């Protein structure tokens, strides 16, 4: 038997949480360093997995299956494909970094670290699960630590935000559970026994009508998670109130549960409904892109601005997902990773400046560049990555999404492209007000520049922005076959035809990778 790498990825954070929990409260100074150190283990595992992952293969790798309870058709079934691989790696990367950024959390550190590690386990589990119940389990489990992280260590309206986050997302997943149960019974009707196994369920023959209903049940859960307009209002509240690490994990990974779910489950299980609902989803995605960006412009709070920008960026992912072309879906996947990195850094930096000034109001700043050039520089770099400056990571996903969407959703792609303009407006305007100009508020003179710790925890992410911007193939190579498989299935099970790339596609090795 080979080393159960995926199980280890899920369980090591849990084990780490237990270890941290065992350290007594009077040694509270140990909790955070210990947590950071232990979270390196899943990071190392994820790194190993990332590079050991066999490129060019569409199916699931490192799968592991064991009955959980056979009569009910539940099993422990995990596996990794290109799409989940990217997100697992992102999760494993962001956790140590957000932990390291949490030195300002001094109250009940142990609990915090434990929750972060459980959160990590849940998130990794979501991406690896190939059994619907297992998936649902992780999908829901994630809520609890996040809820506590927002509610206990958050800002002023943290309790309201925590409630809203929890109930809103739980509402979505409740209907998804109904959908999951229904699927299992469809399987019973067609194959004779209950099964929650994703790969088994892929073989179901679902009527168009059933697909639509199930798409709705799953889609609502994911749409809330993404969030897709008009289900987004929990997000700004949750982000603004969450502590830095919470925001980073929330924007970096949690939102991707929704988009991942769309690609994995809605596209995979309900292809006909997907094809039928493309106009709806694309419309909502475009509204999200433009609306999120537009509303972000006038936000008075830096964190809220970044939160609304997430609505916009996630809109691109949804658009790409439902464009149903190779380039667009690939773009959507890599945009998930990229948004995680850039928005993660933006939140980290908002957190850092909050620690210095205890305010996130844009109006309270001005001229920070003078006193904190490194800080301003890194922020600007990240802002441009987020805006989608080519050469940085944010561009790759959005560009691929837009370019790939045009052939199937021309209007949406054109409108979506305008989101790129708005992104420049809201971020640069905010940047102007916060970092440039003269210092008008005396407290801002005291703002310290990045220290070594902060710089070193930002550095890997900043480096990744550049690397993924210039050489996204690290990820795309691994993602591409899985995306192809999704679209092939779509073509095989519906009348949908993925548009042929133009006549020159194969010239110069286009589409070949490497």
């Amino acid at each position, binding site marked *: 038997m080979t080393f159960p790498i995926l199980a280890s990825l899920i369980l090591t954070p849990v084990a780490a949480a237990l270890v941290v929990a065992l350290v007594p409260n009077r040694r509270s100074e140990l909790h955070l360093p210990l947590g950071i150190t232990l979270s390196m283990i899943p990071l190392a595992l994820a790194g190993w997995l990332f590079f050991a992952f066999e490129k060019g293969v569409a199916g699931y790798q490192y799968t592991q299956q064991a009955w959980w309870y056979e009569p009910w058709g539940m099993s422990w079934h995990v596996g990794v494909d290109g799409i989940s691989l990217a997100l697992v790696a992102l999760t494993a990367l962001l956790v140590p970094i957000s932990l390291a950024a949490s030195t300002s959390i001094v109250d009940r550190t142990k609990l915090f670290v434990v929750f972060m590690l459980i959160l990590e386990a849940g998130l990794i589990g979501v991406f690896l699960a190939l059994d619907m119940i297992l998936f649902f389990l992780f999908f829901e489990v994630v809520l609890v630590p996040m809820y506590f992280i927002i509610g206990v260590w958050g800002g002023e309206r943290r309790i309201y935000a925590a409630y809203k986050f929890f109930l809103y997302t739980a509402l979505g997943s409740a209907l998804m559970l109904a959908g999951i149960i229904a699927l299992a019974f469809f399987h019973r009707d067609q194959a004779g026994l209950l099964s929650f196994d994703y790969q088994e369920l892929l073989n179901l023959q679902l009527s168009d009508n059933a697909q639509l209903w199930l798409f709705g049940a799953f889609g609502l859960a994911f749409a809330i998670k993404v969030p897709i307009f008009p289900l987004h209002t929990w997000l700004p509240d949750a982000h603004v109130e969450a502590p830095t690490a919470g925001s980073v994990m929330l924007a970096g990974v949690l939102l991707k549960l929704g988009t991942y779910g769309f690609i994995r489950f809605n596209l995979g299980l309900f292809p006909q409904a997907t094809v039928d609902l493309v106009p709806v989803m694309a419309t909502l995605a475009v509204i999200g892109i433009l609306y999120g960006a*537009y509303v972000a412009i006038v936000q008075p709070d830096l964190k809220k601005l970044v939160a609304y920008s997430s609505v916009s960026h996630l809109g691109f992912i949804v658009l790409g997902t439902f464009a149903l072309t190779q380039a667009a879906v690939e773009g959507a996947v890599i945009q998930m990773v990229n948004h995680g990195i850039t928005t993660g850094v933006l939140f980290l930096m908002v957190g850092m400046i909050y620690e210095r000034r205890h305010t996130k109001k844009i109006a309270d700043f001005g001229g920070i560049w003078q006193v904190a050039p490194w800080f301003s520089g890194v922020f600007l770099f990240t802002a441009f990555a987020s805006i989608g400056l080519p*050469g940085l990571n944010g561009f790759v996903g959005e*560009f691929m999404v837009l370019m790939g969407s045009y052939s199937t959703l021309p209007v949406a792609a054109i409108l979506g492209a305008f989101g790129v*303009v708005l992104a420049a407006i809201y971020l640069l305007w905010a940047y102007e007000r916060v970092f440039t100009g003269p210092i008008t508020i005396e407290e801002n003179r005291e703002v310290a520049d990045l220290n070594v710790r902060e710089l070193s925890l930002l550095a890997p992410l900043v480096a990744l922005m550049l690397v993924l911007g210039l050489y996204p193939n690290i990820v795309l190579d691994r993602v591409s076959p899985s995306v192809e498989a999704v679209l092939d299935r779509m073509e095989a099970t519906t009348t949908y035809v993925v548009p042929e790339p133009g006549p020159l596609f194969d010239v110069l090795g*286009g589409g070949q990778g490497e």
Partner: protein
Amino acid sequence: MTDFIWLVLALPAAGAVFLHFFGKRLGEPAAGWVASLLVSAAFVYAVLAAVPFFQGTAHPESVVLWSWMPAIGAEFAIRWDPLSSLMTLVVTGVGALIHFYAIGYMHGDPRFSRFFTYMNLFATGMLTLVLADNFAMLFLGWEAVGLCSYLLISFWFTKPSAAAAGKKAFIVNRIGDFGFMIALMIILTQFGTLSFDVLDDPHLGLTTGLATAVGLLMLVGAAGKSAQIPLYVWLPDAMEGPTPVSALIHAATMVTAGVYLVARNAAIYEMAPIAATTVATVGALTALWAATIAIAQKDIKAVLAYSTVSQLGYMFIGVGSTAYVAGMFHFMTHAFFKALLFLGAGSVIHAMSDEQNMDKMGGLAKHMPVTATTMGIATLAIAGVPPLAGFWSKDEILGSAFNQGGWMVVLWGIGLLTAGITAFYMTRQFVMVFLGKPRWDDGIHPHESPKTMTVPLMALAALTVGGGFLNTPFRTGLERYLEPSFETVEGAIGMAHPAEGSTAWILAGVAVLAGLLGIYLAYRLYAGPEERRERVLQRFARPIFTWENAYWVDRFYGKTIVLPGKAVAGWAAFKFDLGFIDGIVNGVAGVVKRFGATVRPLQTGFVRNYGVMLAAGSVGLLIWFLSRGGL
């Protein structure tokens, strides 16, 4: 040589990275020298690599570096052909000169090394733009220079106006990019790749309609980057940046990217005459529009900024009338003389202790002979006085336009008028700055600039004088040089050429006359007696006032787009989002609570009532069961 052409890119890139981390330690002026020498090295390498093109022995080549986004056929690949090499040579050549100049100009700035980091980064971006072998990489360079433009315009970020100008430049450019991106979407969808290979035979994927769409959308992008109507408003503001920046980015190189884009896509514009004509028309209108504004500007750099807009319009006339070579030629000569003008202006500003108002200058020629001479040459060049560079290129554009006939003749007329106005305002500027009596503020002691600044001035002056001979009607060097790049185009319909024979002479004569007339009028007015000037200006007070304020276009945009936009965004964010959408969300919770509050009183605490509930439930069950067939 071609295999290692990426070195041209890598050298300034390395400089940017190196200076970013070690620039501060290197200090002044070493950081500047490093940056300048790296760009120079890139220039030298580019010259060597371009030798085969001079000899006419080589064909365009692509060098693939690494794969970028395979799914959309985008890779890091360099196209080395005459067109890109010409751009490269100008960018690195003029760029190097401006780098050297900046060593002197930026002297004493606390962020000296950072300035050169950005400059090198800009060079990298610009070279990426021109060397790209596909639209994605071109877009990368396109945006990268936008970034550098942003960084360098707001280099003195403590000045709110500088920060705002940088932002404005980037955002307006982005609006242009919006069009550009849509053009790319169409190309990708039609061809399956973004490689420039599509230009070999655009008929493969494009119909005339689509080609027109692509052409017009690219024009939107080009209008943003090259400051054409209606997106030119960022360029005058961009003068907030240090003067070398204005010279390099906002005169010589970056702003010509739009021209380059049109030239590069010549094959598509060949298919879409409507798009091409639109390009030319936009260029002509911009040329005239900006020239009139330039007449009334008081800021020395503002004159040059509007002049740049105007000259870019010229280039658009050129490439739009399918006179690609003429357009590129004017790009080149303009790079020489406009860079020279800006650097000269910088030298003046430097000498005047950062005074930019021409009303407070005058009589500087005595104190700054080198600057005055070189700027004088440039002024004559832009005014189209033969045999300076500006004359040849401008003449070629106008000639080509005229030769096209039809609507283009109208554009030729506009161009001619603009030529006269150009000569007028440039002479006005020269007179106001260098001639007449000093009108300086107290305590200003103008002096000639240091060698690092004057040597580039002289070098550029030399280019301004001689650059025009690269492509004269008598000896079409540039045209032959660029031929391989426009092979396919020529094969199809053929590029526009200036008229030949006597027409050419007449056209040239008319253009020169217009220029001389402008010079004469301006000289009469500004070097002449003050009363006459006052009288004349009084008569034209009203138009001049609007010109001075650039037709209030900024205010117009502010009132019609920015302000309503912000208001609606505010409404959306606070009324609609927080009030309505979130209101519904919270309302759902409220409904549950209200329901709870309604049923809660049922729990009265009285046993009787509980008994009633119990009995009622029981009766309910009874009724149900009995209704199932009992009674």
